[in-house]
């Protein structure tokens, strides 16, 4: 078991009334799974990913990650766990504009205090693997969307996470680029055993996954 959500409630209060973002949501994810989360806008896909990714909290319920209880864990410990095991891929890529491709990929290693020589080797491998060695000194605004997302995935993978959370990773890409990214995810999942959870609108993208979860109004409607 990689992670387990147990009866999670998350809400915001507006004008004295609660609006539920996650409503009694329970979910188990095994290591090595590839899960697609589908659902209309506002159904809670991003919220769910953020909760799983420990970027966001919740009001009620229990969250276990690798058999450790997350919701009452100290910030420092949680951050350590998170750095170690989780990588994020965003729809808008969210690369840092001021950094080159190389530096963007390197940054998570800096935060994990990896030694310089080792960083060089790891980033070098990653650039090789994604065929972007020639672009390592370019800045994000000099790349196409697909290339930027490749860098984003490379950055998410560099710290060898067990889990990749992807929030509409192909939302801003054309269908050809989109297929390439999905192929890549599938390959990562099958060959490297990385667990992947992606939120998506697209049926064809969802099909790459081994399992699809449908979300509606913060609850899982069909498994």
């Amino acid at each position, binding site marked *: 078991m990689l992670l387990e959500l147990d009866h999670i409630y998350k809400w915001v209060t507006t004008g004295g009334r609660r609006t539920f973002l996650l409503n009694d949501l329970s979910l188990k994810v095994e290591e090595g799974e590839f899960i697609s989360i589908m659902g209309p806008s506002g159904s809670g896909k*991003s919220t769910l990913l*953020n909760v799983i*990714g420990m*970027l*966001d909290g919740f009001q009620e319920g229990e969250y276990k990650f690798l058999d450790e209880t997350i919701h009452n864990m100290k910030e*420092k410990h949680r*951050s350590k766990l*998170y*750095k170690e095991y989780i*990588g*994020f891929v*965003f729809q*808008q890529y*969210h*690369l*840092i*504009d*001021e*950094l080159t491709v190389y*530096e963007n990929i390197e*940054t*998570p290693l*800096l*935060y*994990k*205090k990896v030694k310089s020589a080792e960083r060089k080797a790891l980033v070098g491998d990653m650039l090789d693997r994604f065929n972007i060695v020639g672009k390592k000194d370019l800045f994000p605004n000099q790349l196409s969307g697909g290339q930027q997302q490749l860098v984003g995935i490379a*950055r*998410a993978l560099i*710290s060898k996470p067990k889990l990749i959370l992807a929030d509409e990773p192909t939302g801003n890409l054309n269908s050809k680029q989109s297929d390439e990214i999905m192929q890549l995810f599938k390959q990562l999942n099958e060959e490297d055993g990385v667990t992947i959870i992606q939120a998506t609108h697209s049926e064809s993208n969802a099909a790459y996954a081994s399992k699809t979860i449908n979300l509606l109004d913060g609850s899982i409607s069909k498994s």
Partner: protein
Amino acid sequence: MIKNYIKIAWRNLLKYKGYSAINIFGLALGMAVTLMIGLWVVDELNYNSYYKSRNRIAQVYQNIEYNGEVDTDNAIPRPLEFALREEFNDKFEDISMASWKGERFMKVDASTLVMNGYSVQPEFTDIIDLKFISGQSEVLNNKNSLLLSKSAATRLFGDKDPIGKMLTVDNENQMIVAGVFEDIPKGNDFSGLDYLMPWSLYADREWIKNASNQWGNDSFQMFVKLADDVKLSEVSGLIATLKKDQDPEQAKYNPEFFLWPIDSWHLYTSFENGKQSGGPIENVWLFSIIGFVVLALACINFMNLSTARSEKRAMEVGIRKAIGSSKNQLIKQFLSESFLVVIFAFILAVGLVLLFLSPFNELSNKTIHFPWESLSFWATTLIFIVITALLSGAYPALYLSSFRPVKVIKGTFKTGKMAALPRKVLVVTQFSVSIALIIGTLIVMSQIEFSKNRPIGYKTSGLIQIPLRGVSFWGKTDVMRNAFMASGAVTEMASSSSPSTEVWSTRSGFSWPGKPQDFQADFSYSMVSYEYVETLGLNVISGRGFSRAYPSDSAAVLINESAARFMNMQDPVGQTLASGKIGVDYTEYKIIGVVEDVIAQSPYSPIKQAVYAFDKYQSASYWNLRLNQNQSVQQNLATIEEVYKNHFPDSPFSFDFVDQEYAKKFAEEERIASLAKIFTLLAMLISCLGLFGLASFVAEQRTKEIGVRKVLGASVANLWLLLSKDFVSLVVVALLIASPIAFYLMHQWIQKFAYRADISLWIFIVAAVGALSLTLLTISFQAIKAAITNPVKSLRTE
């Protein structure tokens, strides 16, 4: 990691060049001011550091009470020396009597130069740790030898060895140069000391011999060096009551001696009612505070611009957090940015200091060098940089690093209304300080202007004074008056024993009809010749001036209005003042006239009661000459010099314009005022620089809103108003805060002047109008630029 922080910081600086320039330049200005003030403060605190044993050097001071008011002075009576040497010799390493600082003519061959120095006892050289190049202190035991400073010796004798050479002092004494000492550098009392002459020669004068047993004759100075391990306060206690004990006559003045250490001579100069009451140390404090305030203003700019840009950087923060950055790491990153800015600013500040050091020295009358080689300076500087970086970087770092990543990344992040509040508070703080500084400076200036416009009591322009040194001028007043007036350059001339702009001596012991018992009266006292009233242009209120038509005038006096009030005389003319003991030296003086008050002391103080006595012996210290207005000043001066040289070929001709001498009374306040003006200007400039940055940020942030409003038909004026009114209202709030505070503080300050200007409303109006127009000028550039942008452009970028 550090390398990475710096790299990113560097790229951020380059990317936002405008903001970086404002930040760096603003901080550099602030740091330059603080550095400059720091150097000045250190220089002030290190005054007299030339003297190795400075913790043991002191001068004897005396408190004397007149009518319940205690006066503190460094003049002491001669018998004190004998008493100290006899009773307390073990407490002192050295004791030396000293004359007042005096200018003397020193003549070598045909040339005569004016030299500054004292007549002292041999121990004096040890007291001030004088460094001999040749000779030794004992030569001062010889009445015919003197010591010269290195520079004075060079001026007099050129490259020749001065030792053993003869020179003539004041056309009177033949002296031998018996020693040369190193010049005492600027920044120390006694700097500019040219000569030391033997006390024994000075003490040969009749009146000084007579003073040997006069405890009431406070006409000398005394310097001492304490013995090792003797406490200054202890010795002060021992000598306090010597005068009372030795001469019961003096007890009514309750005289008390005390030692005043050399450390305090420069910065603690004011005494009020016998208690130390500040002095230049107040300026040290004042400017230290101003230095930190100006730096704080610059730091506020940094904080404001950094947090204002937070929306732009929020995304970066969110991503960094999402890919694993901890809050600490983000704080470190933002702090490295502020460090980088501060280091650049510091380098620029050092450049500014180097550039402006010499004008600053001129303004503050100092010789400050940039302390490149001082280790402690660089250590302090390092701390200074760290503090500045923390001060300006800590708040933005904490603020930015605490963003919640989810919100930012989802794009729902907008800094709310509350987020701008601290920024507004800081802007208000900045402008409150700047406006308070403006008001303060205006009040100082108005006080100076007010005192300058105070009636002086005579015509200072077109009047010169010639200082007279030595006995060769005595008895020559009438002869010279005839000669000068015959030359046509001078319309009137009179002598006086004090310059008209100063009070050199005071005299007590007068009695008059109706004087209350035990009333101690102290008058400022000057001896003058005939035509003194006419020469100065004094207004005679009643009676007349000294006149050759009345032989009895040699026993007459003039008094001023204040004296008439002081003595409570309704009709003073014809009444008599008396002095001395009956049967010993009793003398009566008839009051023949009352003249208008003349400002001879501080232009801020009430005018002291004055007596002008007739100078029978023509032994004056100054000749006052009223120049002929029908000729050019140059022509007059050339003629006067020629006449002077004809009569005194061996004495150099020197003179002062009385109006310039009078203007010197304002030098100290004017120096403060011009420094205050500069710092106020800088504070305002720094504040406006920050405002400019904020305005450009706001204009940028509201680009879309402006575009929409324009499409809906808003005019440029509407938009200008829209963008300006927020800032203007902040400045108005600052005005409301600053005005009462500045009023209160300046009201306190101005109390120290007896003669003071009202703090008038127009000062606050000028400050308000000035601050508001500067604000408008600063923000209008951005507002108008935003307002005239083509709306299609700004809307398309969304």
